[in-house]
């Protein structure tokens, strides 16, 4: 009997666990899922929770019955450390976990594994910006967040209170965007600002709001991907034009190339790429925190700390990427990992946000003071799930003795991504921006000029895209619950 342990049950980990349990169901092999959360969360719909258009119960469900049905062993716990070589007592690789539920809170356990998938996603590093966090790793008191369903519920209550005050005639300043120079996930903040704007219009108080976007992107529409170019009306058009058009249409201001370095009550201080230090006041702010790895440690057989061997300095796990430090001009699509296998310990893999990217996708920039202001690469839902499935396909082949090396690849330089960014919810009044990009990491040799396939990279705004977004909400929750036909729904 062999055992596959999957750390994390988010988009990437849950996809991996679901397929592993299905493909290994007729064998003696075990699939163990370790995740601290009792609930699965369809994170993209947290945006709608954050404007009161959905409740927490519509974007989450209990994981335990799903894993029971799938035949996977579920441990509600967080992984603390990995011993890829075993320890003085055992030659078997193991992971040390600490329970967060199942009536074993605080208890530790070592779980031996033959294969390990790290799908632990991001640590929401609020404390990287003074005042954005509370100093204990959690969201601070001055701003709201939509990164988790609970954060989004809180954001929605604060928004309701703000709207109430606007109804009484108080003018309010909204500030939405990124809370640090090294953030990713601009798309989520983009969705939130447009959903708030839509909500304010529906509540009849839009004219009482000053809305400002603040972001570490060097231009609007960079999205951490160095922007993208669409074929629009026979013109190759930059996402800069696409994004600026939307902000201008909805009467919003923007501050770009900004590193927020301090958050206080009603005010942020930021430094821009041209070296200015400025302040922006707010009554309501949602600033995405920078992401880091979740802080797993690694030890060798002698018990020595080998965290630096297994993980990059930002805490994400090293995989088969080319981590040589080189200038932007020398970056290649082949720098990006394909098998997602750890180079030192071949039975370990990392997928989704948990793998260490070789470098950003956007061109790195610094302020004249030397502050790096660089959007870090997005690893959105579709690529995260595709990596989870590809890695599990490789592992299952190896567990079944069909191969000794990974048989499947999933490189962000060879795959595309579909992204539907909501700009307001409503069956007939909603809109969203539907974008497809191919490939995610530009390949300037294959596609000179824009780095991407102009026919495969598209964008449009409208009600149809909102319907697609709503459909995906239901389809992905159906799939994650492993309901009939779930395998037919693509990642």
């Amino acid at each position, binding site marked *: 009997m062999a055992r596959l342990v999957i750390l994390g049950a988010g988009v990437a980990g849950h996809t991996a666990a679901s397929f592993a349990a299905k493909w290994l169901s007729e064998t003696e092999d075990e699939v163990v899922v370790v995740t601290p959360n009792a609930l699965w969360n369809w994170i993209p719909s947290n945006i709608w929770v954050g404007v009161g258009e959905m409740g927490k119960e519509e974007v989450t469900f209990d994981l335990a019955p799903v894993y029971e049905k799938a035949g996977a062993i579920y441990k509600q716990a967080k992984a603390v450390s990995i011993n890829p070589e075993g320890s003085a007592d055992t030659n078997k690789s193991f992971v040390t976990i600490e329970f967060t539920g199942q009536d074993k809170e605080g208890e530790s356990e070592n779980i031996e594994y033959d294969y390990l998938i790290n799908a632990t996603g991001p640590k929401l590093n609020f404390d990287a910006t003074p005042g954005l966090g509370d100093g204990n790793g959690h969201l601070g008191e001055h701003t709201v967040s939509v990164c988790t369903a609970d954060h989004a519920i809180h954001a929605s209550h604060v928004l309701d209170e703000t709207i109430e005050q606007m109804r009484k005639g108080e003018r309010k300043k909204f500030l939405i965007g990124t809370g640090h120079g090294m953030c990713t996930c601009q798309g989520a903040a983009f969705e939130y600002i447009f959903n708030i704007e839509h909500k304010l219009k529906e509540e009849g108080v839009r004219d009482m709001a000053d809305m400002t976007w603040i972001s570490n992107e060097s231009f609007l529409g960079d999205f951490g991907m160095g922007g993208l170019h669409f074929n629009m009306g026979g013109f190759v058009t930059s996402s800069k034009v696409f994004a*600026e058009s939307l902000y*201008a249409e909805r*009467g919003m201001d923007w501050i770009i190339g900004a590193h927020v370095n301090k958050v206080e009550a009603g005010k942020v201080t930021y430094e821009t790429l041209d070296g200015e230090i400025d302040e922006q006041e707010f009554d309501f702010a949602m600033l995405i925190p920078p992401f880091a790895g979740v802080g797993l440690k690694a030890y060798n057989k002698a018990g020595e700390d080998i965290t630096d061997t297994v993980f990059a300095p930002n805490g994400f796990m090293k995989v088969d990427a080319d981590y040589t430090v080189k200038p932007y001009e020398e970056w290649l699509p082949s720098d990006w990992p394909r098998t997602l296998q750890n180079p030192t310990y071949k039975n370990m893999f990392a997928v989704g946000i948990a793998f260490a990217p070789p470098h950003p996708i956007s061109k790195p920039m610094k302020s004249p003071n030397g502050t790096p202001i660089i959007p870090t690469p997005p690893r959105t839902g579709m690529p995260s799930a*595709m990596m989870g499935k590809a890695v599990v396909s490789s592992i299952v082949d190896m567990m079944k003795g069909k191969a000794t090396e990974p048989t499947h690849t999933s490189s962000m330089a*060879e795959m595309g991504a579909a992204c539907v960014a909501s700009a307001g919810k409503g069956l007939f009044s909603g809109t969203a921006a*539907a974008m497809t990009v191919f490939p995610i990491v530009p390949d300037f040799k294959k596609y000179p000029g824009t780095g991407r396939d102009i026919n*495969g990279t*598209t964008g449009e705004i409208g*009600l*149809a895209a909102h319907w697609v977004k709503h459909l995906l909400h239901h389809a992905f929750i159906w799939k994650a619950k492993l309901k009939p036909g779930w395998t037919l729904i693509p990642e």
Partner: protein
Amino acid sequence: MAEINKESKHVKHVEPYSPQSGTMIPLGTQKFLRTCVLWQLIRFVAINIKMTILIVKSHR
């Protein structure tokens, strides 16, 4: 009081020489099409086709 030109209502919030004045802003027809159910039904099919092609190209 001077009457506002019909199409200008879509851009009346834009300050001259502001960053907003340097981009494209949709006028009435474009905005109408964005929520016109018939046209959007066609776009719904088109978006799904585009995404299916992308998914097929990305799975290897």
